[in-house]
């Protein structure tokens, strides 16, 4: 038995808004000093789950603890343990970057000396030291995101929640944010819970990924393990004609480990993609199924998502 308390623990969290159930029953255990990614499409319940864990809203049912503190009964202690960045940018445009940091520190009762040290250190970390004394309204989207990340770290949180930290950022800024996130875990022993609908983000960053859809976690594990379930190669086929006939025959082939169908595409987990491609094409021809597009790839989290939900997770 590991005696250290989980950084985050949720038991059957439910959130209902009238008739609508946004979160159906989320169980979550996040070990200290790890990065956990909640991966799912928009509306899957990611933000609602984070809002409950960060004490913004109260769960309808179930319970959750952060570093051992209950998010409802000990909300104030929880708030002292966490840093949060929200999905939308919530910065006061009229303030300078330095003021944003300072007022945040003051809200948490940090001393002036602490605030100064921390502000300098963090603004340097996110490479905003040159822009520190400019009004936030002059910042680019990427700079604002980095400032929010720095603000979330201002109070030395044990657990940092990042809701879609790279939403709307260009690739260069995304890569930067990823670097900071990985760096933080190494340096500070921080636990991070982030939500994303970017597959590559979850795959790159997370020690553990929870795939969330329809308000519940439908698969969970290390990205590598989740992907390994998918066979060693994935063949993705789309086309028209007698798809059902094609599917029934392909299922019988010994090298096909699993078949996943979504609206228009079919995905086959196979032992070796390049070698099997020709056989798949032949079989399609024999079944009067015309292939428009076929590709072989190493499976990714996108394929895991497809397998569990029968839907593609599109990057918006």
């Amino acid at each position, binding site marked *: 038995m590991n005696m250290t308390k989980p950084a985050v623990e949720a038991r059957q969290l439910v959130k209902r808004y009238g008739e609508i159930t946004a979160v159906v029953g989320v169980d979550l255990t996040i070990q200290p000093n790890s990065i956990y990614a909640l991966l799912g499409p928009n509306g899957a319940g990611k933000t609602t789950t984070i809002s409950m864990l960060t004490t*913004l809203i109260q769960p309808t049912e179930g319970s959750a603890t952060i570093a051992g503190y209950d998010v409802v009964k000990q909300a104030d202690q929880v708030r*002292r343990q966490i840093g*949060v960045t929200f999905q939308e940018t*919530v910065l006061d445009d009229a*303030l300078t970057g330095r003021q944003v940091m300072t*007022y945040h520190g003051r*809200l*948490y009762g940090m001393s002036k000396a602490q605030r100064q040290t921390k502000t300098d250190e963090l603004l340097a970390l996110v490479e905003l030291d040159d822009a520190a004394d400019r009004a936030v309204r002059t910042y680019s989207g990427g700079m604002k995101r980095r400032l929010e990340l720095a603000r979330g770290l201002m109070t030395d949180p044990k657990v940092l929640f990042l809701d879609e930290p790279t939403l709307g950022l260009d690739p260069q800024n995304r890569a930067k944010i990823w670097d900071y996130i990985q760096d933080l875990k190494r340096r500070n022993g921080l636990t991070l819970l982030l939500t994303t609908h970017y597959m590559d983000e979850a795959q790159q960053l997370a020690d553990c990924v929870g795939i969330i859809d329809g308000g519940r976690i439908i698969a969970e594990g290390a990205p590598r393990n989740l992907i390994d379930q998918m066979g060693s190669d994935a063949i993705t086929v789309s086309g028209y004609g007698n798809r059902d006939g094609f599917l029934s025959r392909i299922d019988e082939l010994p090298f096909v480990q699993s078949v996943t169908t979504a609206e228009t595409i079919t995905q086959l987990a196979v032992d070796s993609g390049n070698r099997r491609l020709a056989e798949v094409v032949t079989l399609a021809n024999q079944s009067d199924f015309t292939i428009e597009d076929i590709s072989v790839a190493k499976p990714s989290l996108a394929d895991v998502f497809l397998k569990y939900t029968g839907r593609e997770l599109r990057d918006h």
Partner: protein
Amino acid sequence: MNAAITLWNKQMSKLSGEETFGLLIQPILWVVLFGVGMKGIMGSAVAGGEDYIAFMAPGIVALSALGGAIAGGSVWLDERMRGIVKEYLVAPIPRLSILLGNTLTIVTKSLFQAIVIFIVGVLMGAQLASNPIGWIGGIVLVAGYSLGFAGIALAVASKVEDSGAYHALIFLLNLPLLFLSNALYPLSSLPQWMQIGARLNPTTYVVDGIRQMVLQNGDMLAGGDMIPLWQCFAAITLFAIAGMWFAYTAFRSAVR
């Protein structure tokens, strides 16, 4: 309390050059343009003769306090709509300190404006009472009046879901509060029904109290039928408490 002061400090530090200019220029324009313009016709109607600028200055203080409360409410609405309030809500601070910080900001700006108005009024020829205790009494009344309307504005801003609804509701209040009072004309010159309306309007009490305490010959300015000072203080105290209570309940349901 620390959190309320931090939020107050943050709001005050955001005062840009333009906004400060606006805070100054609006009441100054009222006093200078409206005051001077009306002086000619109103002078004879106001007890005490020519001194219409002094007569109307307290009304402009009230009007500015009302405007300040409306502006403060829309700042809070904006913070709610844009999600800035979430930064406060995940912080280990009492929920009430958020309301308190907003209220303090509104009252501070109103007091600042009140002082500017009286400085301009004095430059334009109004004479202040010689007893500074009266000045402090006037400041207390303005603070109470401002608290009351800050409460109403913040309550409405806690409830509505867009700024259109907020401004519609607030502007409904604006004009009657100014015109259905003794701010621009003596109470005794009004028809009976307007006198009753004015008696129910907190503006009347803050204006009458300031006239009596802050201005030279204030009792004459207030007209023959001035309201006893204790009534002014009682009315404004009740109004301030009611406004804050209103804000407190609306705020609690908005942020939990």
